[in-house]
């Protein structure tokens, strides 16, 4: 009796069942539902909001951004997961004209009591007031301060992965083996699909929408940046192709289990924002293809860098995984993909890494989203992936 399908199921189930601490509470509602909540509640009455442009997930809620097409102001709203009132804040360009209110009149506008820190800012054609976080621009109430999303930090692990990828690219040239460009074609197709749906994923570009910049310019710059990165990835894959190899079901299942565990252990905030898109399957596919390829190249590099250790290679990889569990944070998924792929033979690295990345996305989505659409899609990917692995295990010699 062929027990491999059972082993495959066991590995995937282990990735799902091992208990992990909940680091980030799952988001109870989608960003679009949060936006509806804001639009139904009160907001700045005299301003045109424009369209919902972008959203960003923080640990305790959604930050949403509306901006009219002229770009002279934008509205940000903070929708907490718990039952708190929506907090909105208008950001107005400093050159917009207004009035110069006295302190007492400005206090009347926002209903601020006396006391606390008070500042005023004389703009070219108006005066702004700040009463301990409650602000007035001219005679317009600007709303409340909001939690700022945490700044992205790169740290040591991305540097290690980049170094390993550089070594891997060199290995693919110096010790090429049986190179194939099928993955490059798939990558080009996936990234082309991503560019094709790019206008609908521009909601992820939270940082580019700023006061004074018209939204179409912000969107154009983000799309141009995305196109440059995608073209560079395709060029890289064309120069440094992948190695031809037949995947093995048990290795893929181990990668799937590791990816699921990594995703559940350290869900990625950006992944929650992606889950709010309608085009999330396309983004997931492009990420799997691109990150799978890059992780495979890094894995080949890491494997060759550890080659002099011979029998100690596997213990070192296990040690790195242990260190990564505690310190990699949101990079845990890519780190897991690279480590798992570097433990298998070079020709099977790409399949293994791509499997780890795809199940990492599934695990991260299941751990960080609590509304139905992304969970349904993640479950479909999980079932389809597990089924494919089981089928592969069943027919494998």
């Amino acid at each position, binding site marked *: 009796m062929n027990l491999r399908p059972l082993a495959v199921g066991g590995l995937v189930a282990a990735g799902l069942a091992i208990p992990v601490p909940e680091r980030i509470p799952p988001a109870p509602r989608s960003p679009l539902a949060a936006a509806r909540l804001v639009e139904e509640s009160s907001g700045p009455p005299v301003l045109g909001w424009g369209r919902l442009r972008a959203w960003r997930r923080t640990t305790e809620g959604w930050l949403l951004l509306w901006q009219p097409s002229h770009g002279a102001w934008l509205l940000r709203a903070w929708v907490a997961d718990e039952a708190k009132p929506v907090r909105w804040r208008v950001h107005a360009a400093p050159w917009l004209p207004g009035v110069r209110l006295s302190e007492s009149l400005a206090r009347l506008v926002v209903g601020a009591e006396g006391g606390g820190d008070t500042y005023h800012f004389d703009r070219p054609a108006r005066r702004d007031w700040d009463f301990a976080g409650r602000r007035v621009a001219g005679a317009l109430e600007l709303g409340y301060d909001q939690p700022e999303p945490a700044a992205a930090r790169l740290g040591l692990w991305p540097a290690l992965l980049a170094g390993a990828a*550089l070594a891997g690219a060199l290995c693919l040239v110096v010790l090429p083996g049986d190179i194939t460009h099928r993955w490059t074609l798939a990558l080009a197709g996936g990234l082309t699909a991503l560019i094709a749906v790019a206008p609908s994923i521009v909601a992820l570009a939270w940082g580019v929408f700023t006061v*004074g*910049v018209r939204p179409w310019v912000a969107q154009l*710059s983000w799309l*141009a*940046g995305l196109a440059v990165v995608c073209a*560079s990835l395709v060029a890289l894959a064309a120069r440094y192709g992948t190695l031809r190899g037949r995947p093995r079901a048990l290795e893929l299942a181990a990668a799937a289990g590791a990816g699921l565990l990594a995703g559940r252990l350290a869900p990625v905030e950006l992944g929650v924002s992606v889950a709010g898109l309608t085009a999330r399957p396309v983004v997931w596919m492009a990420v799997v293809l691109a990150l799978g390829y890059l992780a495979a190249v890094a894995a080949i590099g890491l494997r060759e860098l550890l080659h002099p250790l011979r029998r100690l290679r596997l213990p070192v990889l296990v040690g790195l995984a242990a260190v990564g569990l505690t310190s990699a944070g949101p990079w845990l998924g890519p780190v897991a993909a690279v480590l798992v792929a570097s433990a298998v033979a070079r020709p099977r690295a790409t399949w293994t890494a791509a499997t780890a990345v795809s199940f990492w996305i599934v695990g991260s989505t299941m751990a960080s989203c609590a509304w139905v659409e992304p969970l349904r899609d993640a479950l479909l990917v999980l079932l389809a992936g597990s089924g494919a692995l089981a089928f592969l295990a069943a027919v494998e010699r």
Partner: protein
Amino acid sequence: MVAGCLAATIYLTAGRGVGGREMAGEAVREAFTALGWKPLGTPMTSLEGDQAVAWALARGRGGSGPAAGEGSALRWRVRFPGGGEGAVTISGAVWALRLPVPADPGQNLYPASVQRAMRERLAAVFPDAEQWRWVAGQSWREGDVTWHRGRFAPAVTGLPHGWRTHLEVEMAGSSVVSVQRHTQPLASDVGVVMGRIAELQLLRSVGVLGLALALVGVVLAGAEQVAFRRPVRWLGGVAVGALAWAAGRVGALPPWECALGGVLAGTVVGFLPAPGLMPAGRRLIAAPAGVLVAVALLALPGVVDQLGGWLPPRAPLLAEGGPALLAGRMWFPALTEEPVLRFALPTLAEPLAGWWGGALVGAALGSLLHPVPAVPLTASLAAELGLNVAMAVVARWGGLTSAILARGVCEGVLRRQSLPAGWAGDAVVVAAAALALAAGVGRRRKVVP
């Protein structure tokens, strides 16, 4: 052709900088004398300007040239070593004055008589003082001296519709000690300019991202060179990198930009395989091409104006600039961007998209690096794209050296316009053109004895 190119360069640079330095000192001295105070010594003169206001003023005027009110954006600051300073417009009109408080400022005036006294004393300096509209005044006492401050609104400002200006005049006793002019631009004019500046910074970040990714490709190519024991030009790379870094430092650019430029230029020259040698005489294309592109870009604002848009001159103000700054600013982009955009990208992209595919990607990225605010924004991006495509043609025909020389000459002619006038600045640009011509002429003489 050599003589013609040199003559064109001299014509485009000599006397084209910001003039009026000599007039400024004399104008302030005469104003002080008219107010009854004799300044001592030779004044120090410097150019000061506000780039955003200058662009907003040009935008408000619909692209027409400087006129009255120009001092809001650009003026000469004159400081006398014995005290006293003033500001003068480029055309020589006194914009502002500050005098030392005299030991005996004269008889104290009643507030009711201050307005008349101010007009009478200032009439010798500002002929239109009688037409100024009185806005407000205040008086206070310091020791035995009564101080007065009056605010006037000039009848004729020369500023675009919606812009406002006022003058603040201060008197101690019966002596005028200060005349300051304040301009409040129309919010929509400043808004358009500030918005465009923010938009261009955002677009520039895409260009910088492209350069960074190109650097990754160059590093990978260099690693391959090392791995296969092919020759790597360590010395040449370090030399070119150091030259680019030094040009950035001389050009007073931020340290990170100098470092990035040096690394880019050094890695490209050091790591990539040497370009195929072009016939030496083809370098003769560099100087004429640079001059021609500069002429086209200088003429473009007028063309855009005729079409109903607005495009300011490409070079931003370099108020504190001297010849060294000009040299740094013209050679830094030539030494850093040309190797990446016209050599590295075409070389790396050649197996996939051909030389021209890579060159066009380079031109598109290059067009995002130095645009100026324009209405519509695409006018500025199109102008930059034109410059970059022209440099790609030069690089294809005459090689990388030609592209670097052509870009240096072009940037020199364009940036000369925004620096103070003077023969030293002119000489820097003419020397660049002469260097570019000598690079072709000298090598050709070796080939053809």
